[in-house]
């Protein structure tokens, strides 16, 4: 799928992978998470090689990772509460009271109080995304991977999730890696960008890419933000 792709996502920043459908954004995130093994090449996460590593190394790396999937990937036989409690119960020796504390805290952070007893099937799309984000964060990862966190959401929810991601990055120094084709939010929050085109990548800061001469990059970015509006959106993101 990729040929000669090389990219760095810096610790403590928000990086966004841009690209059209089928350009390999999700694949790239799955490669980072070790869900897909690459045919060749090297992937280093938090200083450890994950391409062709052993199962135990992968386990160690994954403890530093939280992943928010496009469709939420919540277990649909469990309530929201149990979905969030699952990684704590499975991986950490915590008392039920501590688990309840952490879950309530995390649900508050994403604004989902009162949904504990509901099943994922009873939630709206936006609520599922927020619950998925809460689950990705519950074990306090160092690196957060988000696959299309904004797709299919209303502008208010987009703002809300975006605010959460920025806050996590600024206040906790969490490294955030987002795959998205949502241009406005990307330009507002991204520190670094990777644009996927035909298996190659063009990386740089949002300003670099906006100034890029490549016809296809321009076309892609213009679609989301008319040329006049782009600088102000950028300014808001960096403020």
């Amino acid at each position, binding site marked *: 799928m990729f040929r000669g792709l090389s990219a760095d996502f810096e610790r403590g920043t928000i990086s966004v992978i841009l690209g059209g459908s089928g350009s390999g954004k999700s694949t790239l995130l799955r490669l980072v998470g070790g*869900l897909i093994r690459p045919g060749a090449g090297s992937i280093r996460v938090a200083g450890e090689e994950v391409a062709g590593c052993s199962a135990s190394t992968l386990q160690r790396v994954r403890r530093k990772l939280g992943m928010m*999937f496009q469709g939420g*990937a919540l277990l*649909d036989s469990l309530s929201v509460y149990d979905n969030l409690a699952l990684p704590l119960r499975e991986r950490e020796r915590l008392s039920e009271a501590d688990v309840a504390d952490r879950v309530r805290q995390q649900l508050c952070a994403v604004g989902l109080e009162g949904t504990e007893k509901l099943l994922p099937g009873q939630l709206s799309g936006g609520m599922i995304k927020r619950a998925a984000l809460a689950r990705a964060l519950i074990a306090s990862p160092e690196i957060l991977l988000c696959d299309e966190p904004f797709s299919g959401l209303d502008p208010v929810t987009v703002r809300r999730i975006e605010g959460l991601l920025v806050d996590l990055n600024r206040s906790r120094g969490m490294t955030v890696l987002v795959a998205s084709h949502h241009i406005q939010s990307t330009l507002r929050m991204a520190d670094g960008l990777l644009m996927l085109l035909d298996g190659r990548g063009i990386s740089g800061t949002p300003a670099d890419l906006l100034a890029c001469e490549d016809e296809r990059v321009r076309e892609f970015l213009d679609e989301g933000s008319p040329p006049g509006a782009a600088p102000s959106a950028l300014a808001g993101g960096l403020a």
Partner: protein
Amino acid sequence: MIFDGIRRLGRRSLVVVAEHGRIARFGTGLLRAVVAPPARPGRIVQEVFDVGVLSLVIVCISGAAVGMVLGLQGYNTLIRFGAEESLGAVVGLSLVRELGPVLTGLLVTGRAGSAMAAEIASMVATEQLDGLRMMSIDPVHLVAMPKAVAMALAMPLLAALFTVCGIFGGWVAGVRILGVDAGTYFSSLESAVDFSDDVSGSLLKAVIFGMIVGLIATYRGYTSAPTSAGVSASTTGTVVVASVTILISDYFITALWGV
């Protein structure tokens, strides 16, 4: 032309052999998950509910119907030789040795095995298993193991209930409708069926069939393609493969252990 055919045959054989290897590896993983803590009693109870309680009605009704047919057919054949007092033996032996475990296996495959495969396959399609992997939770241990264990536990119980309902059905057809003496029916049944020869073999078969269905259903679901076509393929695949495997292994169990 000939070489082409040989090449294709070779490739197909390799695919089949590799598939067996993958099932064996998955089965070992499943076994390891059974002994590895935690035991997950809560999830196993849930799965026993899905497999056992929800299959109970069709298993009992089918058992009674099969028993009634056996009673009717057996009576019509035996009466020609004036041996209708052996009706209990005919009904009991056929049910205990063959029909109980085999038909229960096929019914449960269709009722619960397919649902099991479909559930896991749709979890694959909606990235739920990948979600578990990212949280360092083994999906085989959390999702597949309780289902397979529940299948192996519920199958002998369901097969025994099927057999009891069948014996009762044979009693209805033979004794209540056709007028065979009730005492004769049961004494012929009791003297023909033996625990060590027949009943224990019946339970052994049911446990093995439960393991087969549990393994194939979870394997098919687990390895399905993450699409809706993958979900339906894993469901039909489970029913076809598990049913044929039950029938073939029934022959081998009968031939090897004489039950």
